[in-house]
């Protein structure tokens, strides 16, 4: 594949793994967090953790947008989908997230008109094809996905599509990272930065991590060599006593991000005062809602939604997994009561979720040789 194969070269991978081995200090334990669910998926798909010395531990961060959606938002979506005349549209993984009384998939089976879409543009197309129905798009995702929603809302406005609206559950990546860094039960040595969020926001928003917390950040791509090289770059910073934001993914990520996307985001969205994250609780200024200029396209204003907070199931330890405090297989219900077919927690639903990645790639527990 063009521009991809060179990042899956096994020989180069082994060479970088050798470099990593030469950089670690025996007796020191390194905890590196990969922020993004896409990285978690790649790490277990390609067995990257097996190439690392035993004292380099990868901790899975909160960067799966499906996994952080709280139950109350799912319930709100289901309530909206049951309103007369509504066609409710959402991404595939979102349909299986459990609410307090079933998922969107269950609601679909019970008769609600819920349709899976691959992009917000598909939802807009459904609206144009069904002018006598109200079409609601359930928008989730980080800054990677939010521009797509924003452009679709602008297009709906420009094309005069009146029967289209958006239930916005977009989130931003920096506030949860700050919350994690403030968490007393988590000690991290560095971060593998989210590659595709950074195509939009750039590397600059992560500069507070070295500046305020003294931890290195390396923005990384999603191929095996990208991730290995990012780990090597973090370890090199640690060994050299440096901490800064470095960009391993320069072939895609400009340091300043995509300025046009940032402009569109600031036009269409504004920050919510608080947003609830599954397992992490309420985090200030971490969620987006439609701006005043686009309030007429806000489904939560157009329809009534319950807006109730629902506590996570007691058995589920997604919060600890999302904070990297426990490994997925350390959760009491992992692989028994909670499986990808019958998930209890969100981390088992999305393929980007740490639990699903562990489960699907058979990495329940392992022993490694200590350096």
């Amino acid at each position: 594949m063009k521009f991809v194969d060179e990042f899956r070269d096994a020989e180069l991978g082994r060479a970088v793994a050798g470099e990593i081995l030469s950089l670690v200090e025996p007796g020191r334990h390194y905890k590196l967090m990969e922020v993004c669910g896409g990285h978690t998926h790649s790490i277990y798909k390609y067995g990257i953790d097996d190439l690392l010395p035993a004292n380099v531990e990868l901790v899975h961060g909160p960067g799966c947008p499906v996994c952080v959606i709280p139950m109350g938002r799912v319930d709100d979506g289901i309530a909206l989908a049951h309103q007369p005349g509504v066609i409710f549209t959402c991404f595939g993984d979102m349909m299986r997230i459990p609410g307090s009384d079933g998922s969107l998939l269950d609601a679909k089976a019970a008769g609600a008109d819920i349709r899976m879409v691959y992009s917000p543009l598909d939802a807009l197309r459904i609206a144009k094809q069904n002018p006598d129905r109200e079409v609601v798009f359930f928008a989730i995702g980080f800054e990677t996905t939010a521009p797509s929603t924003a452009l679709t809302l602008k297009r709906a406005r420009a094309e005069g599509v009146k029967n289209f609206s958006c239930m916005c559950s977009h989130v931003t990546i920096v506030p949860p990272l700050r919350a994690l860094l403030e968490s007393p039960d988590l000690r991290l040595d560095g971060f593998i930065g989210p590659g595709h969020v950074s195509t939009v926001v750039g590397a600059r928003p992560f500069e507070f991590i070295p500046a305020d917390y003294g931890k290195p950040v390396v923005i990384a791509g999603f191929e095996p060599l990208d991730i290995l090289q990012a780990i090597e770059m973090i370890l090199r910073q640690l060994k050299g006593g440096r901490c800064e934001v470095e960009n391993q993914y320069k072939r895609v990520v400009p340091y300043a991000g995509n300025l046009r996307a940032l402009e569109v985001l600031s036009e269409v969205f504004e920050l919510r005062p608080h947003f609830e994250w599954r397992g992490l609780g309420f985090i200030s200024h971490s969620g987006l809602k439609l701006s005043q200029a686009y309030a007429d396209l806000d489904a939560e204003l157009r329809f009534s939604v319950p807006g109730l907070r629902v506590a996570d199931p007691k058995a589920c330890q997604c919060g600890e997994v999302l904070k990297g405090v426990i490994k997925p297989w350390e959760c009491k219900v992992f692989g028994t009561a909670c499986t990808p077919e019958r998930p209890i927690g969100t981390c088992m639903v999305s393929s980007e979720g740490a639990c699903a990645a562990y489960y699907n790639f058979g990495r329940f527990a392992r022993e490694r040789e200590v350096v």
Partner: protein
Amino acid sequence: MTIGATAEPACGSEHCITCGDDGEPMTVIKVDRDRGLALCADDDGARATVETALVEPIEPGERLLVHAGTAIAHVYRAEDEVAG
């Protein structure tokens, strides 16, 4: 020039690129400048209509990173990396 609608969406892969912080490199086949759209193909040849407002101007043959139906960045060869 009008570019046709995408195929019925499917999300059956092991890796949900729409929901995760993931993007798919695609090659531009045709550009519809009037509508801000382009017909793009992934590495398996599957085609999709892509919103291009954030990466214009573009030309056929260029590589774009596509996420949720929107191109969010250009993809360059490692040796032609973007500045910064």
